């Protein structure tokens, strides 16, 4: 199930070597479970250097409180400096030359006219294009330039003194193509005689945020796979079943469409390459640039002060990063390269489609005897369309068999996208589970109580049962007489505990009483800056707004790449440990002036106290002036989870209320209730904000978003934010979020992330189940546009589905 990114050297070994004299571990009692439902204590054996166990949120001052976003005032006042705002002396502007055809060999590239234009300083022809799957046997394709595998693939780039000059020059670069047969329709690509995207087997490596597929899978034509996973005997399981639910589901390609496009400002100097990047991983950008240009990592610096959304598509330097760096090296000037909206849709990632055949067998009492999923999905000319996560991990089944296939088409490669594979998989699984409940005449919530072993999900279902929205659900489908029918449905989600062990931070305490935290981690908008300030605030008793938070710069201690909901889970324990250790050093440094020993001192609630009563408690800031040095600091890296593999999934339940207009085919989402867990919520306001975003993105995916490729020419026809439709303010319903505080005893903060599990996984199926509840018709295809809904409603209804 969840794989932990493991540390090669167990911390306990390091600790015992380093502290041969003292105790290396201690046993502590930690809160476990959900307050009000299942809260209890469990023992954990942890390194002796760990700080005291944090109590539950209600007993804390800053952690677990809805503290105001640390940099919110900078964002709303326009003072936050995003990558596109970076202006360096002598900076040039770059523009890509993108392929205008979906599949071709490049015969020649004539840059002469472009180079003659006023203001043009350099043209760079791309020799290695990143992101696409790569042939296992490169000898199958001997070409001067990379083969064009999708319309929009970057071919070259121009640097000029203004963006306008660069854009005009890019238009003047003449590319001569030798066209190759192409295919952009997944169903067509699966046919035996289809045009081939690659002349032989090809693989794509994953990124820090997931994505990519299994390397070395079998490949037949454009079909890369299957990746097969199984346990138990599904054939026997279906024989044992009293009921089998058998259904096909189809989901579309969604593009990330972050507000801020991909881009960098690259400044190549002889001793240091500095890159300002819109990235989810300063570490990943440094890594890729160092590898690509064969530079030592110490000579690559990556800075991300503010970031306008990534959703999984912004790891590594990518084509914009390496091309900007190459142009900077060539021109000796800083290069700004920001993609436009069309390039953003075409060339830097998307959520793969899916075509799923799902069969679930169950006994009369609901016990699942077999789950069988065969999926085909396209990640364009990349891989990573697997979607078996929910079917494999949400419910217990006597037998499981999944086969995931990638189908290559001539479209831009996919990238990790918020809970890779899971919205697709849950859309199918959770509708089929509802269908199973109906066939078994078991309430859909009761059925999950029987087949879902997760104790937190059980609590969440209980919360949901007691909610007004769920109580308003009519158990009979299609009960409303008029053309506009109301319905309520729900769905569950699952995500996993991933830890990035390259998570570290330094905490400094200065003689003037100011404290700061430094980490290379980037704040991708989800609010890690605020959370770090809260941790220091709790330790030193200083309000969060007064903490200096310095992040988004590889000059600071290495931070996690923000993908897979790892950031909060990975980094916050290191920061708390650093804050704790810095506070101990601080007490040691003030003890002489206070006429006592460090062991006599504690720092709680902003006051330095003497256990022996040598002096009245004094405020932290006054005590700091007595430090015997200008600054004390502690740099700490993440240690392993206290109890790996225990409580290693998260999730939630989402309930949607819809009004289906059966005459117009419009689905209006009226209300959503989201009940979610993420370990200890460090800042409920920010956690709720992420869930609001996930629900919104999920509604948008379910009802509107759709990348459309012309089948005859292989070109995306809606590469804008006008005809690529995204939910707007009218489409966002009232969203109520209930956080399930769920303590799991894994680290000094016991926190986890919420990005993936936050709604987007389960909203689609919740809407699907609500539409069924409203109309008695199941929509098994995304997006649920009027065309799709009316077609489904027009189908003659089998008696079994019409209650």
């Amino acid at each position, binding site marked *: 199930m969840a794989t932990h990114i493991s540390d090669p050297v167990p911390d306990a070994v390091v600790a015992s070597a380093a502290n041969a004299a003292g105790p290396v571990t201690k046993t502590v009692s930690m809160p476990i479970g959900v307050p009000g439902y299942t809260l209890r204590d469990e023992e954990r054996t942890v390194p002796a250097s760990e700080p005291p166990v944090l109590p539950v949120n209600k007993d804390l001052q800053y952690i677990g409180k809805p503290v105001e976003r640390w940099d919110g005032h900078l964002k709303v006042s326009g003072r936050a400096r995003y990558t596109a705002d970076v202006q360096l002396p002598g900076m040039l502007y770059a523009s890509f030359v993108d392929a*205008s055809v979906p599949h071709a060999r490049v015969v020649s590239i004539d840059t002469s006219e472009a180079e003659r234009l006023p203001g043009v300083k350099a043209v760079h022809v791309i020799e290695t294009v990143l992101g696409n799957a790569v042939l296992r046997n490169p000898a199958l394709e001997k070409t001067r330039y990379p083969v064009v595998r999708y*319309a929009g693939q970057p071919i070259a780039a121009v640097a000029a003194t203004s963006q*306008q000059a660069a*854009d*005009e020059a890019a*238009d003047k670069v003449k590319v001569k193509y030798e066209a190759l047969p192409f295919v952009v329709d997944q169903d067509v690509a699966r046919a035996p005689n289809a045009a081939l995207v690659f002349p032989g087997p090809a693989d794509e490596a994953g990124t820090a945020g997931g994505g990519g597929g299994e390397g070395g899978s079998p490949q037949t034509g454009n079909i890369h796979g299957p990746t097969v996973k199984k346990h138990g005997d599904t054939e026997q399981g279906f024989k044992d079943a009293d009921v089998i639910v058998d259904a096909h589901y189809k989901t579309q390609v969604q593009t990330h469409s972050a507000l801020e496009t991909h881009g960098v400002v690259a400044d190549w100097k002889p001793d240091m390459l500095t890159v300002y990047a819109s990235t989810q991983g300063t570490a990943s950008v440094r890594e890729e640039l160092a590898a690509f240009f064969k530079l030592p990592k110490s000579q690559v610096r990556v800075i991300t002060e503010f970031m306008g959304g990534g959703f999984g598509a912004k790891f590594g330097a990518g084509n914009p990063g390496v091309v900007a760096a190459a142009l900077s090296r060539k021109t000796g000037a800083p290069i700004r390269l920001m993609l436009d909206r069309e390039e953003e849709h075409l060339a830097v990632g998307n959520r793969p489609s899916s075509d799923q055949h799902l069969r679930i067998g169950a006994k009369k009492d609901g016990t699942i005897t077999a789950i069988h999923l065969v999926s085909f999905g396209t990640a364009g000319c990349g891989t990573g369309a697997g979607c078996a996560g929910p079917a494999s991990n949400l419910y217990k089944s006597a037998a499981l068999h999944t086969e995931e296939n990638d189908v290559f088409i001539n479209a831009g490669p996919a990238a990790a996208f918020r809970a890779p594979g899971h919205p697709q998989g849950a859309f199918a699984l959770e509708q089929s589970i509802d269908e199973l409940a109906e066939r078994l005449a078991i309430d859909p919530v009761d059925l999950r109580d029987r087949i879902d072993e997760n104790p937190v999900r059980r609590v969440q279902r209980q919360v949901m049962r007691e909610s007004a929205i769920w109580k308003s659900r009519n158990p009979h489908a299609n009960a409303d007489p008029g053309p*506009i029918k109301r319905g309520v449905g729900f769905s569950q989600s699952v995500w996993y505990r991933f830890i990035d062990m390259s998570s570290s931070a330094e905490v400094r305490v200065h003689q003037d009483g100011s404290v700061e935290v430094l980490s290379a981690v980037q704040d991708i908008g989800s609010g890690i800056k605020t959370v770090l300030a809260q941790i220091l605030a709790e330790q030193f008793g200083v309000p969060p707004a007064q903490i200096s938070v310095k992040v988004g710069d590889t000059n600071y201690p290495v931070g996690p790449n923000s993908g897979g909901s790892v950031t909060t889970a990975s980094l916050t324990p290191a920061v708390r440990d650093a804050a704790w250790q810095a506070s101990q050093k601080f007490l040691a440094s003030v003890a002489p002036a206070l006429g006592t020993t460090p062991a006599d001192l504690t720092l709680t609630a902003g006051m330095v106290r003497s256990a022996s009563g040598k002096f009245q408690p004094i405020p932290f800031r006054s005590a700091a002036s007595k430090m015997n040095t200008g600054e004390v600091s502690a740099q700490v890296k993440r240690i392993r989870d206290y109890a790996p593999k225990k409580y290693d999934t998260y999730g939630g339940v989402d309930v949607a209320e819809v*009004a289906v*207009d059966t*005459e*117009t*085919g*419009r689905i*209006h989402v009226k209300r959503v209730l989201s009940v979610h867990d993420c370990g200890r919520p460090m800042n409920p306001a920010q956690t709720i904000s992420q869930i609001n975003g996930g629900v919104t993105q999920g509604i948008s995916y379910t*009802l*509107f978003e759709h990348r*459309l490729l*012309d*089948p*005859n*020419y292989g*070109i995306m*026809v*809606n590469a804008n934010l*006008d*005809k690529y*439709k995204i*939910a*707007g*303010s*009218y*489409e966002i319903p009232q969203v109520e979020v209930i956080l399930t505080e769920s303590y799991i005893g894994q680290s000094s903060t016991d926190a986890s992330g919420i990005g993936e599990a936050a709604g987007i996984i389960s909203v689609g199926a919740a809407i699907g189940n609500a539409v069924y509840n409203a109309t008695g018709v199941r929509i098994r295809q995304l997006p649920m*546009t*009027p*065309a799709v809904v*009316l*077609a489904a409603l*027009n189908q003659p209804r089998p008696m079994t589905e019409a209650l």
Partner: protein
Amino acid sequence: MNSFAIADCTTVEAALSQLQDGAVVKAGGVDLLDRMKNGTDTPTRLVNIRNISELRGIRPTSEDLTIGALTTLGEIADDTTIRSQYAVLSDACGHAATPHIRNMATIGGNLLQELQCWYFRSADFQCLRKGKDICFAFSGLNQYHAIMDYGGCPSVAPSSGAVALLALDASVELVSSGNGKRTVAIKDFYVRPDANPHKFHVMRDDEILTAIHIPKPAAGMRSAYQKYGEKESHDWAIADAGIVLEMDGNICRRAVVAMGAASPVVRRSMEAEAALAGKPITPDTARAAGQASMTGAMPLSMNEYKVQLFPVAIYRTILLAAGQMDRDPSAAG
């Protein structure tokens, strides 16, 4: 976007004198700049008329209501006279695009915006409308395209304002330096692609659209417009209806049923109008009119659903105009 020169004019005469050598008029710039950014239009000279104050404003005259071409959609939507007497127009202008766009977009520009077909809007496709001989929509992606009257080009009429103005029997005033002023009825203003696929409207390159004239409302007139999209926030119509009813008690003396997203040029459905004339407005007559509106529909490979949607848009908008139904939640945007 290509480089261009821009001439800023504050009078119609000055603007007209600049209209030469392929110069293009820019008012709100909403649609023109989109096309320039797409690379489908590459004018080297723009004539900015946005600051000609005499072309802005709503003026009731003794014969009609005159709306200056530079009046914004937002101003029309908020005008109390238009709201009370010509609800179909305030509905159409008030539900177009987004509040930001409505504050920039002018009614003249709204009427003159180019087709929204994604092939037409892409520099990658050289289509019939751009003077070539092929349409990419018939065998391509056509879910938002026309279901009637399309000839060789099934792109749909993009302007909500034109639907309302057609329903109101409005006309536009065109001015040029050589030929002075002429007035063209909205019904004659647009060119159907089966008549000439290379021409979208009858305006000449040396003309400026200066004003819109709307006849005084007939006795007992009620009207409404509704736009149905796939969503309410910022979407194009997949079906729409502009309805004018002239009521005599509860009998509909005369009805106008206008549609935009059904065909390349805004059209009236004579069949639907006939289904209402001389009858009371009831859910049944309204539905009958909606059904009648689809006479002659020939959906394309992907837009059969519009044949189901239009009758609904029409019957609900008839009932809205008649005061028998609230604004449709599916047309709230």
